[in-house]
């Protein structure tokens, strides 16, 4: 949007610069037109001035001359001058000096016009008198042909000719020297009537000429001395210089404007390109968004959303949920990039392997989950495909450079609604069974039931806790040497509303997965310690899982109870159940140290089953080992178990660790244990778990 704003701004700038350009262009055009007009008027004036001078010269020389041309030229000069005066270019303050020069020119022209007017007046008189004198002499000469000419007549005639020549020379040379010294008239001494008349007429005009000549010649000279031509040249030179500057400025301005326009064009193109690119990006983002709504970005397969949509549209779906076994490990070991590449390869492999089957769609549903949706497919056929697929993939080598990865997959097939959830349940089930890779969901798998049972159990535990129906039972532990009861193991029971008891196998797993477990443990400690207080002759042991030690609040509350009842605490032993996920040995040892400070002892429960780990003994101060029932129950019949028993016992003995055997159910077993040297025993042979310990330490065999 910011970009759009910029485009608009640049467009406005461009628009303005275009307007400026047009405005400038018209200005420039007007200026150059005005300039041309002014200059051509100037040239015309210069020309007209020359012509006028020429015409006046003609007029001075020719006897007959048409004045019209002069008047017309003067009129033209006036008109042209008017054009100059009102020229638009002079309105600029810049050209003020030209305007002032024009005023000077105007007065010069007016002066010249006055002189021309005067010249024409004088010239007419002078010309006419010269003409008269010439004709006067001619006429006299003509009459001389018929009449006698006296000496007087001859003298007069000669003198007259001489005088006329002087005047003619003077006018031709425009020089007063020819006439200014002498008095150029005929003397009045004639006696003959004819001669007297001639002289009178001659002198009339000669006198006139002598009078007029100085003024006439001065006027003529001053006309030709006129400064108009010079003034015109100066004005033109000044004007051209000024205009040249203006033209330069205009030129510079036009370059600037043009540059702006170029800049504008470049910017707008650039912005437009950016805009196009952004637009494209936006479109791409939109496309990719739309794509990611439907497709999985990594593999290009349809995604879970597509599947959910699709499931709503088809009538008889059959779904195959494929899970890569331990895919997390692959990511951990080889890294995510290999993991992703592997997923892609799997996707392609699925496509290839299933390419020959119609009406299917392949999906990627989660990190390590794929799915194949069949429409109108036979269940047996789908199952068959699943088996083949599983085998194909298990035997396939995924090669990444030098790396070769083999994977296995689990497939759950399902056509019963809800399709996805059921497939999921079935898959979970199959994961628990390492021997199975393919499963078809069936109602009779009771997958749902167990879920429901879990929920019910949780509800039962919850209400039991509320009703205080969680309680310890106590099973006697016998000293095999004395055959006396020395201690009791507290075992948790849930009392049902109908008065029956549930053993921990029924509910503790469920409880462990919820927050209720902690509460149960606390109650066990509380109630057991209360009972232990009443039976000071016995030691008691309470079960705790290794991971419970990590639960700070739980251990804290246990030790609080221990602090309160120190005497009782010294008779309470803790039976630790081994588990695989305990790594913080130091923490466990710290816990054991604390227990020891109360006089409490530590048992390792169920030793010899599952994850029995000798390493514990290197780091932990263990007091007692309870040998697992799976060994004890078979020592009479199985030699190997007997050996194991002996080994465990020997090893314990060497480490000053006492042994308890559990699951002792027969006398024979008890005898064997005694023979081996096992110190303690418990089991149905010696006594079932009871709601409370026995007052006496005698064994009551049933």
């Amino acid at each position: 949007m910011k970009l759009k704003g910029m485009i608009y701004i640049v467009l406005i700038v461009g628009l303005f610069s275009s307007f400026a350009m047009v405005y400038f262009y018209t200005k420039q055009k007007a200026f150059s037109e005005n300039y041309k007009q002014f200059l051509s008027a100037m040239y015309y004036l210069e020309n007209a001035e020359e012509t006028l001078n020429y015409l006046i010269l003609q007029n001075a020389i020719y006897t007959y001359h048409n004045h019209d041309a002069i008047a017309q030229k003067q009129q033209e000069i006036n008109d042209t001058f008017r054009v100059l005066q009102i020229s638009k270019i002079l309105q600029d303050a810049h050209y003020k000096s030209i305007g002032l020069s024009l005023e000077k020119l105007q007065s010069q022209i007016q002066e010249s016009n006055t002189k021309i007017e005067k010249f024409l007046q004088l010239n007419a008189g002078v010309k006419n008198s010269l003409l008269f004198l010439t004709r006067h002499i001619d006429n006299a000469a003509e009459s001389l042909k018929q009449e006698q000419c006296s000496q007087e007549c001859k003298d007069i005639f000669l003198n007259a000719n001489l005088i006329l020549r002087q005047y003619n020379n003077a006018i031709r040379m425009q020089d007063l020297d020819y006439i200014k010294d002498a008095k150029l008239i005929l003397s009045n001494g004639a006696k003959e009537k004819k001669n007297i008349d001639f002289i009178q007429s001659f002198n009339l005009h000669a006198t006139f000429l002598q009078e007029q000549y100085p003024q006439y010649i001065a006027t003529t000279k001053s006309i030709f001395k006129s400064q108009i031509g010079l003034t015109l040249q100066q004005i033109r030179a000044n004007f051209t210089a000024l205009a040249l500057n203006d033209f330069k400025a205009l030129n510079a301005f036009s370059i600037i404007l043009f540059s702006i326009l170029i800049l504008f064009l470049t910017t707008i193109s650039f912005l437009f390109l950016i805009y196009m690119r952004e637009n494209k990006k936006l479109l791409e983002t939109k496309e990719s968004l739309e794509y990611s709504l439907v497709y999985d970005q990594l593999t290009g397969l349809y995604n879970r959303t597509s599947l959910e949509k699709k499931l709503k549209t088809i009538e008889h779906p059959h779904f195959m949920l494929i899970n890569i076994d331990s895919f997390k490990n692959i990511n951990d070991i080889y890294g995510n990039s290999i993991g992703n590449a592997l997923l892609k390869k799997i996707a392609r492999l699925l496509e290839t392997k299933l390419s020959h089957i119609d009406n299917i769609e392949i999906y990627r549903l989660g990190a390590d989950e794929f799915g194949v949706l069949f429409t109108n497919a036979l269940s047996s056929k789908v199952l068959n495909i699943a088996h083949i697929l599983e085998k194909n993939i298990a035997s396939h080598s995924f090669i990444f450079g030098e790396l070769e990865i083999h994977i296995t997959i689990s497939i759950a097939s399902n056509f019963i609604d809800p399709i996805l959830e059921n497939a999921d349940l079935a898959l979970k089930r199959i994961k628990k069974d390492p021997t199975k890779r393919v499963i078809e969901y069936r109602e009779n798998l009771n997958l749902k039931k167990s879920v429901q049972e879990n929920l019910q159990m949780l509800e039962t535990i919850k209400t039991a806790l509320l009703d205080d129906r969680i309680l310890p039972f106590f099973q006697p532990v016998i000293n095999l040497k004395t055959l006396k009861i020395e201690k009791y193991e507290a075992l948790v029971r849930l009392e049902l509303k109908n008065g029956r008891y549930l053993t921990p196998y029924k509910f503790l797993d469920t409880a462990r997965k919820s927050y209720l477990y902690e509460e149960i443990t606390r109650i066990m400690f509380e109630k057991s310690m209360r009972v232990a207080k009443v039976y000071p002759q016995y030691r008691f042991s309470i079960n705790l899982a290794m991971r419970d030690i990590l639960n700070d609040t739980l251990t804290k509350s246990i030790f609080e109870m221990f602090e309160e009842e120190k005497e009782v605490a010294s008779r309470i032993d803790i039976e630790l159940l081994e588990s695989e996920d305990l790594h913080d040995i130091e923490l466990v040892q710290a816990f054991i140290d604390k227990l020891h400070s109360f006089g409490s002892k530590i048992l390792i429960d169920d030793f010899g089953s599952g994850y029995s780990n000798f390493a514990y003994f290197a780091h932990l101060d263990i007091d007692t080992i309870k040998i697992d029932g799976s060994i004890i129950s078979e020592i009479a019949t199985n030699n190997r178990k007997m050996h194991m028993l002996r080994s465990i016992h020997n090893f314990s003995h060497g480490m000053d660790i006492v042994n308890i055997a559990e699951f002792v159910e027969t006398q024979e077993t008890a005898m064997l244990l005694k023979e081996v040297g096992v110190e303690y025993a418990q089991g149905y042979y010696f006594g079932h778990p009871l709601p409370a310990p026995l007052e006496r330490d005698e064994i009551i065999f049933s």
Partner: protein
Amino acid sequence: MIKWLLLSYFFLLPLLADEPIVPIPLDEPIDIPKAKLGQELFFDTLLSRDNSTACVSCHDIYSGGADERSVSIGFNGAKGNIQAPTVLNARYNFKQFWNGRANTLLEQATGPLSNPTEHNMDPKKVQDRVSLSNKYKKMFKEVYGTYSITYELILDAIVEFENALTTPNAKFDKYLRGEIKLTHEEQEGYKLFKQYGCITCHNGINVGGNSFQKMGTFVAYNASTTFPDRSEITHNMEDINVFKVPTLRNIAKTAPYFHDASARTLKEALSVMSKHNLGIELSNQESDKIILFLETLSGEAPKILDTF
């Protein structure tokens, strides 16, 4: 063909150039409707304050275009101060009025209209008067495309009419064009006209009207009254008694002569001129011949007067 044309051109050019008098063109471009509107105005006494005087009252374009009275009679019987010059061919005069105070006909026209002794009007009044007339409204609309009549348009129309007032085809013009021959006496008269120097001032298309000259260059001329002369414009003492050289076209029809109307006949005028401005005395014979020549300068009546 081209060769002949070129030849004739080179022969004719010096001939025409040499002759100091030029014939009146036969085909002056005229806007006829405008000129006719001008004519209407020219003849209309509406243009004077007391509805007594029209332009034509003093410029009788049917005979000479001037006033046969010594001075014209204008508003309320007032007398003018100078003899009315002819309006015919006035467009060829380099300046207007006896003392050349107007450069153009347009400048001239406003003079008599505003003169208190003539039409005694002012621009506003002229405009109002003409605007009231339905006849003029129609005519102005036709000519100028507008009903708003202004003083400028009124003058423009009158000037166009005056521009049309030319008198071509004078006998002398025909002679100049080589169409006819002059009689021997007329030819002689023209020769004298030149020889005695009349031509020095009376030349050009209007045979005068293109320069100023003193009345009495040679022998002082005592005017009985003070007339508005050139000195009124130049304020120069030397220009006293200086007037525009009048046209000699149609001179036979424009008596009386001179600014002061002192000469009743051509003969009288010739005698005054030759004495005062040429310093000569013409014989009877000479002056008759010159008069015969001058009569050849009378042209045809302006075409516009026959155009409807």
